[in-house]
């Protein structure tokens, strides 16, 4: 089973009953798998006429209370941004998968992390964020997809699973842990006919005096709660490290291999892997910062997450960057040499 298929099956296990998407490489295994399996599980699969239509179908399905998902890759995710902004504004849960490819424009179809800014800073118009999960293996594609549906419902928010071309195509053993549904609030806001209740309205338009600012305040409150409760990250050998490599997703697999090798050789190096890119592990990074320690972010882009690490450490440590943009990928050996140069000083 490829990473993309594991993700698709996890969505079914999590009770996703509606999927709409438009074909784009490298994530086609997701719609293909769901077209075979979702109807049999009682759900709806639609190949939409465009990514714009797909995200709006998800918007409609979610407004009616269904667990709904769409998936795409970078150019298609750009097209979904208006819809994601509407989901955030109307406080509708949804899961959006981006198996990133190289950009800008049509770019290429190899793995990339160039959509980091778009994913974590909002992406569409208006002041909003979404929870962004960055799996780095097939196990996490499974686990974080299950979690994404729960968090979407818990916060009534769009949640993104941010993968990349390699992760989606990868085959490796994983444990398909059974889905256990947590206690979540009833969707009393959902549309479905006003039987024995006042009509429900789902909207993002707030024209009355001060109304929109109040709504924005509620959204920001939600994001503060996420920052306090939902940060996920993993550290390796950071205790005495003089250099901490920070990377996520597929770049973290490469970086961890290089860091381990250097550790075995006795270098004081560690690794920090954000699993949630929003909420970003700001506090955890800040607590690790200090004058005797440097950070280096390793990314498959021209330097995006490095800005958030700099904000987090706020001048307490130097923050370096190593990356390959445009769908290029570094080898562990290449990174090993680069890190060793840095450690030698």
């Amino acid at each position: 089973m490829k990473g993309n298929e594991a993700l698709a099956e996890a969505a079914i296990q999590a009770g996703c009953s509606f999927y709409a998407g438009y074909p784009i490489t490298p994530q086609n295994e997701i719609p293909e798998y769901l077209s075979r399996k979702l109807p049999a599980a009682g759900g709806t699969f639609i190949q939409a006429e465009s990514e714009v239509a797909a995200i709006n179908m998800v918007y409609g399905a979610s407004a009616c209370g269904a667990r709904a998902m769409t998936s795409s890759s970078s150019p298609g995710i750009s097209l979904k941004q208006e819809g994601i902004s509407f989901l955030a504004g109307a406080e509708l849960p949804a899961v959006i998968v981006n198996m990133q490819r190289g950009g800008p424009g049509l770019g290429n179809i190899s793995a990339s992390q160039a959509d980091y800014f778009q994913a974590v800073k909002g992406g569409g118009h208006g002041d909003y964020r979404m929870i962004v999960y960055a799996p780095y293996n097939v196990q996490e594609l499974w686990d974080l997809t299950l979690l994404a549906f729960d968090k979407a419902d818990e916060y009534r928010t769009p949640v993104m699973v941010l993968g990349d071309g390699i992760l989606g195509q990868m085959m490796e053993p994983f444990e398909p842990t059974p889905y256990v549904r947590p206690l979540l609030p009833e969707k009393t806001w959902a549309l479905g006919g006003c039987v024995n209740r006042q009509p429900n309205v789902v909207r993002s338009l707030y024209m009355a005096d001060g109304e929109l600012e109040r709504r924005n305040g509620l959204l920001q409150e939600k994001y503060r709660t996420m920052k306090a409760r939902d940060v996920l990250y993993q550290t390796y050998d950071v205790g005495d490290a003089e250099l901490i490599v920070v990377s996520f997703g597929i770049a973290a697999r490469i970086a961890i291999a290089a860091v381990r090798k250097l550790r075995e050789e006795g270098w004081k190096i560690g690794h920090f892997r954000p699993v949630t890119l929003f909420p970003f592990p700001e506090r955890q990074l800040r607590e690790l910062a200090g004058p005797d320690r440097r950070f280096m972010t390793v990314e498959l882009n021209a330097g995006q997450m490095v800005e958030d690490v700099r904000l987090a450490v706020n001048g307490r440590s130097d923050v370096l960057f190593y990356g390959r943009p445009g769908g290029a990928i570094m080898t562990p050996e290449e990174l090993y040499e680069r890190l060793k140069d840095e450690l030698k000083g």
Partner: protein
Amino acid sequence: MNKTIDRSPSLKKVPLRYCPGCGHIIIHRLIAEVIDALNIRERTIGIAPVGCAVFAYDYFDIDMLEVAHGRPPAAATGMKRVRPDSIVFSYQGDGDLASIGTAEIVHAANRGENISVFFVNNATYGMTGGQMAPTTLRGQVTTTTPKGRETGTAGYPLHVAEMLAALEGPSLIARTAVDSPANVKTTRDLIERSFRCQLENKGFSMIEILSACPTNWNMTPSQSTIWLREHMMNEFKLGVFRDAGKANVTRG
């Protein structure tokens, strides 16, 4: 004479903030009346478009969703598929449906989604101040066609009903108007037929409704009624263009 007819319960007793002579008011009333006549208020979910009717969610006393400009047929698809027992309608203007949302309406129609679409054609963009719409007539002056619509650069009035009637997906496609008591009656009947299509699982239906916009046409309400009859109806023929197998029956 002081006789007034009370509003149907599905339309709230709040002021409808439309200009005098605006067709949206009549069309809202008709939809609400049919919902109540068919006794489907507690099963119905409506979609408010981006356009002058954006506040429809404040007017209809039913579950309502507000959707991005042009995307109601896609959202309605998602809604109906997860709630097949609900009655789902979208209410859209000509900018919403015939310009920015052409892909969504064509493909929802082509899939034969079991939804009702009420398409209000007033030959202009009302909400944004009277710019050219795809349905603007040849030579019609708007705020973005100061010399009148020139087909050489701005294209031709788009005939949505005829376009959709050419597809195999739809069950019922018709064009009507709300300019006279007789046409208002026909419009009401077509709205009812559209909802019945859905109740009987016959699939997609769209009722295009020619409607006046005196404010942006720079006319009085009575002048605009005459203009609608003399000019719009000349371009946009009324009739039933597709009726589940009975295709292209035109009148008027």
